[in-house]
């Protein structure tokens, strides 16, 4: 068993706030060449397609708080970027409704 604080170097707070459950994280293919430790490398691999913080934590089997610390570090290193929340318009709601009905 690996204790969570070993992954984060003993830190419990991310260097950046605003990483919510649904915040999307992206990593470019070039980021795959960065010399990263195990969990951070997996985050970069996973986020070749946009993934939410919740998916990252769930897929890697790490607590959300640990994922927040790791992603914040990757952001600082310019290795990943995040998508800030945008407003949901009426047109978007209509598209969501159509899609859900068509499922």
């Amino acid at each position, binding site marked *: 068993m690996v204790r969570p*604080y070993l992954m984060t170097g003993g830190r419990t707070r991310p260097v950046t706030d605003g990483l919510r*459950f649904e915040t999307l994280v992206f990593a470019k293919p070039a980021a795959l060449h960065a010399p990263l430790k195990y969990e951070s490398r997996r985050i970069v691999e996973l986020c070749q397609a946009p993934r939410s913080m919740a998916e990252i934590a769930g897929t890697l089997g790490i*607590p959300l708080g640990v994922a927040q610390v790791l992603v914040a570090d990757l952001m600082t290193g*310019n*290795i990943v970027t995040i*998508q800030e929340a945008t407003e949901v318009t*009426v047109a978007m709601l209509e598209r969501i*409704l159509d899609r859900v009905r068509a499922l």
Partner: protein
Amino acid sequence: MYAPYDQAPPLITTVKIVISGGFGVGKTTLIGSISEIEPLVTEAAMTEAALGVDDVFAVDKTMTTVALDFGRITVDDSIILYLFGTPGQDRFMFLWDELVEGALGAVVLVDTRRIQDCYPAVDYFEERGIPFLLAVNHFDGGLRYDVAEVREALDVGFGVPVIECDARHRSSVKQVVARLVQEVLSVRMAAAR
């Protein structure tokens, strides 16, 4: 050095719906019925707010976590809908604020055998003015109360839809989610008038 972002990432809007209700009411089942990914479980660490709630948690705060489950529906290449289940037990309600912040709306699942279990969820969404609907989940053995009786028992206004569903079936869950989105749309339209 690693190439920094030389182009903006694609603009994707994430939309969040919260699935709530009492412990064991079928939230995880509902999410699993409609999610395009296997429902994932993540753990959220206890925060300061939880201290003192329960002596057990005070023993080792950093190791105490609560499981949250969620699913995903890709609407198109620019919208992703996430479904988040709220932790069932009341003692985890401190987590709700973070989960619910920015949510489009909520589904409160009701088990008619334990109708009172959904009171905290109904109160929570009513107090915050978050659009929600009540979905009465069918369990084997059938409903003991019809929709009108559930509405009366919970004393929710006529603005709050009360519908029946079966959390195990995709077609039924689809209707629940669609109804909620419709509800949010009509709230927006009314506000715009």
